[in-house]
Structure formats: structure tokens, C-alpha cells
């Protein structure tokens, strides 16, 4: 019979979300244990890009030194390809260092990042079971009993609270019947490390290809002519259009070689690995009797960019408050943990709901022409008008997502575009010059081709897609009502400000 240990809280999973949770709880003096299947350093399929908001959390947790951030090259520049075109190349203008965020991101390979973060949690007082795989979770007499395997040995840990931070394949979510399966909100991606590159180290590259919509590809530089490169696509689209992520990935590597002058001799330096991302659009209940789900297990990934390191840590910092409150109250029913739902909704919904709507719009591959043009124009606008970039959210890399202002700007430029174009077409028609194609009319016709293709291809899907858009738009309330995106000041300020 396995030995049983009794503690306050178990965190399953020692990725960024699990470590941030362990650290936050330990800092509050809670007896917490992190159960992590792997022995670190371990590889995690990721783009390794940590945005400024994430760096701010890392700084607060005191890991800047250990990660040697000072020696890494900050990502301050950007190259954006649309097919073979390079509509933007230069500084990322809207990383301005406000609210304690550095004016840049970093590429931190996950074997290093996760190792440091987990160690940091341990140093703060959390117990860490490395190489220990959680196998079963049961609830007995108001307590969680976690059975885990450490090598051959079986481990039983008992605690009133359990936190699922065990990633997309979360066993905790599965045990609570909360595993996300809605493929409208699940991305699939593949990434690899490249070497033999001749690229600027502070410059990220991303690209969009019309045949890989909805999705995009990235190449994030590391030291020594190496880079993390990969692509991400929506699983629903892959299913419907019989697209293979592997094939798209191979194409992307090929294209990168001729698209980017520094990648001509690029060499694949690791095994390409695939991974899934559970995006915020699919978020459902993240609490249950006896605990909560955070990070990828709770679908906190940005639906436009697929970033989840920062979001995972943020969800943990918010969640730690609910866990502490439950321990304090000695109440562990589902209702008790509903405060987590309240918190994460208040924190993420304003910006995320908006991004979810954008992601919904992009879901229809039939509109690839329009989507392609629209995102390119958005990108161009964001790169040259930093005011737009800032408020346009992670959709174009900004931070202070301001849907209201952004919608205003977008609608304004759309209206301007189509009114001008429409007026020009009308004048031509009235002056008897007949129909002349101009940009706006071309865009309208491209949209029309998408509409017709979509209605002809699968009308029930089309209608359900429209329903999803309407639903996403209907949930925009918090986005439009906020004065400032709570994510701008970060999770610590949020917890402090609302306690």
C-alpha cells in the first residue's frame, strides 16, 4: 500500500502555469506540492516567445537573474510576410515599456524557462515531485486523493484542493469531465529548431499564407544562428478541408528558405514536434468541487496568436487567490471556487472576448482572400500607426486591447475604403464609363466569392458559423464597457486592486 501524504493543495503539472501557482501558494504560506511528470530540463513544444507582460511576471517572481535575461537578445524588430511580400519590416513600434513591462519580448527555450520557474516555486517553499506522473484523482469525504507514479513507486497525496495545471491533455480536467473537445477552438501546430541561419537576433519573423488560413507561421531567433520555427492552424478547418498540419509545416519550411534571405541554408536541427492549443474561445467552467483548472488545462490561450505562457501564469496568479480563500474558509464545494470564474472572466474577458470574435470571423476558410487582405491591411496599419497597434491587441501584437477604439478605427477605415471605392465606381458608372475595377470593389467581390463558396459548400455549417459569430459578438459587452484592459496592469495589480 502506498504511503499517503496530507497537504493543503496539490498542483498537477509543473509548466509555467503550475510553477506560478506553486510559487503563489507557497508565498502565501500554503503547504503546496507540485506533481510533475517529467524530470526537468525537458522539451515542451512551443514557440518559446515570452511577451512583455510575461516578462513582467517573471521579474516579479524573481527569476530574471536565473534566466540570464540580461544576456539574451531582446526581440524588438519584426518581419511580416504575406506570401512572398514583405509589407512590414522594422521596429515593433508599440512595445513602449509602459506599466512595468519591458519594451520587448524574449525567446526563452522552454527547457530553460520551465526549469527555472519550477525551481523558483520550490525555493519559495513548494514541495516538488519530479518525474512523478499523476494517474488518478478521486474525491473522498470532501478531500482529493491523487494517485501518482514515481518510477515504480506509487504515491498517494491527499489535499482539500487540487489544481489542474497539466496542459492540454490534462488528467485533472478529464477526471472532472471538463476536458475541451470543441475543435472550433483547438489549434494544431508543429515546430522545429532550425540552425545554420544568417538572421538578425532581435528580429522575429512571422508569415501568412493564403493556403494556410486560418493560421500563421513564425520564426523566433535564438543565439548562434538558431531559431524556433513553426506553424499553427485551426483543427476544425483541417478536418473540414482535409488539410494536414505536417504537410503545411513541410511547405512552410520550404517557403521560408526562399522567402527570407537569411534562411537560404536553413537546416532542420531537431525532430519536428506537434502540439495542440486550447484557446480561450472554448473556455467553459474551470472550477469544480475541490479545485480549479489553470493554464492550458483551462483553455487560457490567446485565440489569435496561440500564446499561452503568459496567460497560463496569469490564470494561476488569479486562481491562487481563490485557492487561498477556500482554504481560509474551509469550504471546498464547487460554489466556493466559483470566485475563480468571476476573477478570470473579469480579467480576461474584456480583451479575450474580442479576440475570440476575430478568431470566429477568420474561421471560414472560404473567405481566405478577404481574410488575407484584411489581416494584411490591419498589420500594415498597426505597424505604421502605433496608436492602432497598441489598442489592437494581440491580434496585431499590441498590449492595451481597446476593442471599442479599435472597432471604431476599423469601421472608420472600412467605411472610408468602401465609400470612396463605391463612390468612384458609381461615378464611373454614372459618367457612362462602365464598370471599372477599383480596390474597394475588388475587395467586395472577393468577399462575395467567399460568401458564395461558403453558402454553396456547406450551408448548415455556414449558418452555424454565423450563429457563432453572432454569439461571440453578443458576448462583447465586457469588451466595450471596460475603461482599460485589466491585462495591461497585470495579474498582481488586478488581485491587489480587487481584494
Amino acid at each position, binding site marked *: 500500500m502506498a504511503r499517503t501524504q496530507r497537504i493543503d493543495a496539490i498542483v498537477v503539472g509543473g509548466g509555467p502555469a503550475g510553477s506560478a501557482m506553486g510559487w503563489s501558494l507557497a508565498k502565501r504560506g500554503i503547504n503546496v506540492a507540485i506533481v510533475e511528470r517529467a524530470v526537468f530540463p525537458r522539451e515542451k513544444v512551443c514557440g518559446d516567445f515570452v511577451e512583455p507582460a510575461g516578462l513582467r511576471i517573471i521579474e516579479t517572481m524573481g527569476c530574471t537573474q536565473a534566466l540570464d535575461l540580461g544576456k539574451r537578445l531582446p526581440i524588438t524588430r519584426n518581419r511580416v510576410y504575406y506570401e512572398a511580400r514583405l509589407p512590414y519590416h522594422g521596429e515593433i513600434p508599440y512595445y513602449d515599456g509602459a506599466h512595468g513591462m519591458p519594451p520587448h519580448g524574449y525567446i526563452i527555450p522552454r527547457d530553460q524557462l520551465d526549469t527555472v520557474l519550477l525551481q523558483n516555486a520550490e525555493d519559495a517553499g513548494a514541495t516538488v515531485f519530479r518525474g512523478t506522473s499523476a494517474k488518478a484523482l478521486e474525491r473522498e469525504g470532501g478531500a482529493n486523493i491523487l494517485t501518482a507514479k514515481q518510477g515504480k513507486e506509487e504515491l498517494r497525496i491527499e489535499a482539500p484542493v487540487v489544481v489542474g495545471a497539466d496542459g492540454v491533455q490534462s488528467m485533472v480536467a478529464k477526471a472532472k469531465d471538463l476536458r475541451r473537445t470543441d475543435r472550433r477552438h483547438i489549434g494544431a501546430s508543429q515546430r522545429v529548431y532550425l540552425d545554420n541561419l544568417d538572421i538578425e537576433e532581435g528580429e522575429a519573423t512571422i508569415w501568412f499564407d493564403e493556403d494556410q488560413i486560418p493560421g500563421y507561421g513564425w520564426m523566433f531567433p535564438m543565439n548562434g544562428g538558431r531559431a524556433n520555427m513553426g506553424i499553427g492552424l485551426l483543427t476544425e478547418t483541417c478536418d473540414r478541408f482535409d488539410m494536414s498540419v505536417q504537410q503545411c509545416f513541410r511547405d512552410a519550411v520550404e517557403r521560408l528558405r526562399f522567402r527570407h534571405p537569411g534562411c537560404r541554408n536553413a537546416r532542420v536541427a531537431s525532430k519536428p514536434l506537434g502540439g495542440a492549443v486550447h484557446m480561450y474561445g472554448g473556455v467553459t467552467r474551470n472550477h469544480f468541487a475541490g479545485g480549479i483548472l489553470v493554464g492550458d488545462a483551462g483553455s487560457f490561450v490567446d485565440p489569435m496568436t496561440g500564446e499561452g505562457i503568459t496567460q497560463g501564469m496569469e490564470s494561476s496568479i488569479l486562481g491562487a487567490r481563490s485557492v487561498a480563500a477556500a482554504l481560509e474558509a474551509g469550504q471546498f464545494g464547487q460554489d466556493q471556487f466559483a470566485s475563480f470564474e468571476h476573477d478570470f472572466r473579469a480579467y480576461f474577458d474584456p480583451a479575450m472576448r474580442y479576440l475570440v470574435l476575430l478568431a470566429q470571423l477568420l474561421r471560414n476558410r472560404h473567405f481566405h482572400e478577404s481574410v488575407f487582405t484584411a489581416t494584411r491591411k490591419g498589420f500594415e496599419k498597426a505597424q505604421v500607426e502605433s496608436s492602432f497597434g497598441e489598442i489592437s491587441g494581440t491580434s496585431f501584437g499590441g498590449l492595451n486591447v481597446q476593442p471599442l477604439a479599435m472597432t471604431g478605427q476599423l469601421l472608420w477605415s472600412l467605411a472610408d475604403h468602401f465609400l470612396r471605392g*463605391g*463612390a468612384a*465606381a*458609381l*461615378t464611373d458608372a*454614372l459618367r457612362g464609363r*462602365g*464598370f471599372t475595377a477599383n480596390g474597394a*470593389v475588388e475587395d*467586395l*467581390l472577393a*468577399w*462575395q466569392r467567399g*460568401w*458564395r463558396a461558403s*453558402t*454553396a459548400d456547406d*450551408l*448548415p455549417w*455556414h*449558418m*452555424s458559423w*454565423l*450563429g457563432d*459569430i*453572432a*454569439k461571440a*459578438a*453578443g458576448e462583447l459587452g465586457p469588451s466595450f464597457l471596460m475603461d482599460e484592459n485589466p491585462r495591461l496592469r497585470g495579474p498582481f495589480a488586478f488581485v491587489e486592486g480587487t481584494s
Partner: protein
Amino acid sequence: MSTKTKVKPKKAASKAKRPAAKKSAPKSKPKTAKSGAATARNALAAPEVAVVGGGLAGMTAALKLLQAGFKVTLFERYDRLGGNTSSQAVNGVEHDVYPHMFCDWYANFWSLFEQDLGLKREDHFVAHPGSMMLAPGSDDYVNMLNPTSLEAVVANMKSGSMSPAELVLLGYSGVDLAAQGFDSDGLNQMEKLDVNGFLYSRGYATEAVAEMQNYLLTLVWSIDSAKTSARTYGNFLQHSLRFPDHSPFDWLLKNSLNAGLVEPLRAKLEELGCSIRTNADVQSVRLDDDQRPMLRWQADGAKRTSAKTFDFGVLAVPSAVLADIVMCRKAGIGGKRIIDCEPELANLRRLSSAAIPVLDLYLKEKLDDFPIDSIGLAGSNYGLTALDISQLWPAELFDGKSALIIAASDGDAIPSENPHEAAMLMLAELARFYPQFEGVKHWGDPDSIIDWDKSHMRLNLDYKLFLDDTGSWSWRPRASYPEGLPRLTFAGDLCRTDVEMATMEGAVQSGTLAAAAVQAQDAAQTGKARGNPIEDVPHRLYSPTTFRAAKLLLLPAAYAAYSLVALKRYRAAKASGGDHAGEALATLIEDLALVPPKAATELGQGAYSFYRSLVDRDEEDPGDEKIGLSAAALMVLGEIADYAASQVGGEKRAAPETAAGQAFEGVLGQIAGIAGRAYGTMRAAADQSCSTKRRWRVKR
């Protein structure tokens, strides 16, 4: 409660789920069919089901039950299966009861055809956007497209069959009816309302709108709008008003019903081991002590009736036969009467049906320019429609000549019950529209373009169409009555399904529901579910909320159109001169004065019911899948943008040209002209201000 079949071992019952997997040698009853060997082991365990009636409903029920592993015997009175969708071969020529129209929204039918039979729709059917109308003495066909796209709406407005204003009212009355939330069990007295009664209660209705609704109903369902249940018609409209999904109104089979539909179904049934007894007239169904159906039937040529008790029964016969079977007036046979177990079924005697005489005219020549669509002969006696099957069915059947199917939707108006006499009366009526048929003296007259050897007249007295008359909903049978009749279920277009109008879709859905009910009863009795769950396919239609929103949006247009119609009526009266001008003016003033209060009342009511349906969503019919208001609104917006894009992009989509159409275009053209001039002025002004600016800059 224990029964004879209860002795069957439980294990065998559970294995019956996958009939084809078993290979053990047959132990008994290997008679049924070839593939029966595979199911032999389960044959012992599988309950026996009698399906009475080999129409679409009965065949569907049989098919679904066979797929689930039941043993099925199908009884059909005639030598061929199909019932109302059957064909009769006369002198080697197939004559359908009527070449049916298969609507695009027949989800259950298409699932049966495509999934169960594995056939491709496009291979066997041709899509039709709608039907046409022809007026006597004219050779200008008028299109009646199904309003599932903006082009169709605009084309309908231009088609000239009614004035645009009246078409707006006709369309609005349809949306209005579809937006009504009638109670689901049909018991509400005030809601036992016919279509005319409904129109009479509406402030915007005009005589022309009522006429048109009546015409459409008679044409398609052979029933007067004065008798058609408003709720049932409203339900039909909900299913067919699918703007803007561009769906064709219907599909026509490229062959006779027998060759294209019934034979493939029959082959499938045989493949699954169905025992099919045609020429077997079921005379009575009574129930034994365990409520099992005891069938008694007369096989063709047999001296005495046969009898057998089955585990379950599905009754899929027309209403008159069903009423007889349920009442079972015959004395001297054992068992309980069905009516004694379920008294509610006495109401079956109230249901009615009508025969639609159909004349198949094969010709000695080809009629040039005859449309491919079905044509309503507007204003004809007997409500005639015409369809040229030689452009539809395999060409080798016609030798390059035409063959017209003439149906008399208003058959009861024909003053004869002698087939050839009736045929001549229909021909005389047809000649008013097609002079080629003038002067045919008698059936077989050699001095005509008719090939009499191949032509055929059927009065269809044994193939009646179920009538959805007012109040009939509450009398129509349900699929099952588990309390009183645990071993008997009901199928047929007369049963209650969410397709209320008598259609093939209703028949197929009811057959599926009856089979599902048998499966459920079997599971309840044995504690084991047999086979994969039998499920019907939900229809996708707009939610009541959506219809109510559409109604509210259209309301101003409707009352504007109503005012226009009143104005036109006044002008017509004035133009005709005479001493009625004063009276006409009084009527006009009266009509117009009433518009604001009527519109306000309707707006208030409409807004309230819209609000109600937003608040209590559970009111929505669980049978159908509803398209929400917002998705619908986005769809409509998208369609409008699509239409606008076509206009901007210079794309011209074909629309029928008629005089009314041109007039309508004239109005639109004028509006465009005014807008154009206004725009031109503005543009010129803008140009000027631009140039001043430029000059100012240069100076600087």
C-alpha cells in the same frame, strides 16, 4: 406481464445488435431471404414486426427496423409497393399516381435516399427552382420561384402574376402565418382556424391575397384555403421559407416513381431480409392478452384468410383504412379491438382525403418550347397542372415525342366518375391553354396528336391525398400510445410529425418515428436496446423569434403595400367612370383611415409576441433544429451585401422579363436616376472645394 417471447435467452438478445457478424449455422426458419443466414442465430431472438401498408411510411419503418435487427413482414394490399408514390404499368408504360415534387428541405427523405439506399441525389433527381403559371390564351409563362434568394424575390415581384404591392402582401401573409405560435397539441378552440379565417383576421389582407393563397393550396394540396388548417399551413411555411439559402424549391425524379424510388427501396428491404407480402389485404388487427397484434389478411387468390400474431405492429395505412382497422366492426373474431385500448383513436373517423385525377397524355409529336417546370394553369376549371415528363424521364421511353401529365387538383369539380369521360373534360379544359388539343372528340379519337395506346387516365380513387383540414391536428394519431398500446405503433403522412402537411417527408419521418417507438418499447420490455438507436433527422428552420422579427421588419412595407392596393382600386373604379366614383372614394378614405390603427395594433401584438419568444425560449418545438435570430439576420445581411456586390460588380443574373417586370424596373430606374443626379451634384461641389484647396496650397 410475462409473455411467451420472454423465454428468449438474454444473451442472444444482446448479440442481435450486430446481426451480420454471426456465422453460426441456421437453426430454423431459413426461409426469409438470402442474407437471412447471417441473422439466423438472432432469428430466434429477434421480435417479429408486422408492418401494414407498403407506402413510403411502411417501407421506411420496415427498413429502419430491419437495420436495427428486427424481423419484419411487410403487408401490402396491391401487387406493387409504394402506395401514393407507386406507379402502375399499363401496356408496358409506367403511370405514376403523380410525378411527385421532392422539396429540398425533406431531410428525412433525403437521408433515406442518400444514406440508407446509398444513392446520389443528383444522379436521380433534377433540381427545380419553383413552378410556373400560364394564363388561358397566353403563351407567356410566369415564374413562381421559391423565395429562397433575393433574386427570386425580386423576380417574383417582377413576374407580373400579381402587382408588386399584392405580392408583398402575399409574402407578408406567409411570414405572418409562419410567425404565429399555435399551441402544439391543437386543442385550443380559437386556434382551430383555417387559412381564410386567419387572413380575415388580418388588417392587411385583400381579396387578391386570399385568392392567391387559395390557388396555391389547391394546386399543391388539393384543398381549399377555406378548409386548410392555418397552423398546419403555417408549419409548412416555416419549413419552406428558407430565404436566403438559394435552395431549389423542389427536385423531380428522373424516372417513374416505381423505377426511381420504389424498386430501389424494395431491393434494399429484400437485401435486409424483409419478408414482403404483396397482394395481401389486411382485414383486421386485434390484440391478444399481451397486447400483441393479431393480424388477419386475405392473400390474393387464397380461399381463406390467414392469421398470425406478431410481437409488434406498425399500422401505415391511409386514414379510412386505419379507421376501419381501429374500429374493427367485424364480429366473430377473437382478441380486443384497438379502439377499446385507446378510445382517442375514434377521431380517426373524422379525417378526410381527396382523390386527384391524373391524365397521362403521350403525344405523337414533340411540343416545342414546352417548359421543363411544372405549370399551374391559372384559372382553369378543376385546378389543372401540367408537367412534361419526356424532358425528365429517360429519353428512350418517348422516342423524341412529348408526354404531358395533367393533374386535376380540384378533382371533385369534374362532373364525371367515368375515367374516359373525365379525361375528355380535362382535355377540353387543357385546350383553353394549349390549342393543339382543341377538337378532340372522344377517347381514342385518331384525328388528334394523342398517342392513345400509351395514354392513360387514373381517377386515383384508391390513392387519395390526406387533407390537412382545420382542427384535424388533434385527431391525427401519434406514433405510439405506450400506455394503452405498448405493441402497436402508427405511421403515415396522417400521423403527427413536425412536418404537419401531408407530404412524403411526413410519411418518411413518421415511419422512422414508428420504428423508433417499436425499438423503445422492445427495449422497455426486454431491458436491452436492440441495434443502433433509430432517429429521425431534425429539420433546420428559422426559430419563431426569427419569423417574428422578420414580420416586424416587413410590417411597414406591408401596410404601405396595402395602402397602394387601396389607391389602385380607387383609381380603377374612377377610371371605369359611372356613378360609383363617390362610393369608391369613400371606400378609399375608409381603408386609408383604418391603416394607422390596424398597423399599430398589429405592431403592438407583433412586438409583444417577439418579446415573448425572446423571453421564453423553451416554447420552441423540440423536434426541429432552429436557426437563431442573429444568425438569420447575419445571413440576410450577407445576402443583401451579395446582391449589392453583384450590382456593383456588374454581374447580371437572369430574371424573367415581363411587362410588369419592365414597369418595375422603370420605377427602380427612376429612383436610381434621382439618386444619380443628386450624387452628381454633390460630387461636382466636392470637386470644386477640392480645387480651391489645391490652389491655396500652391500659393503657400
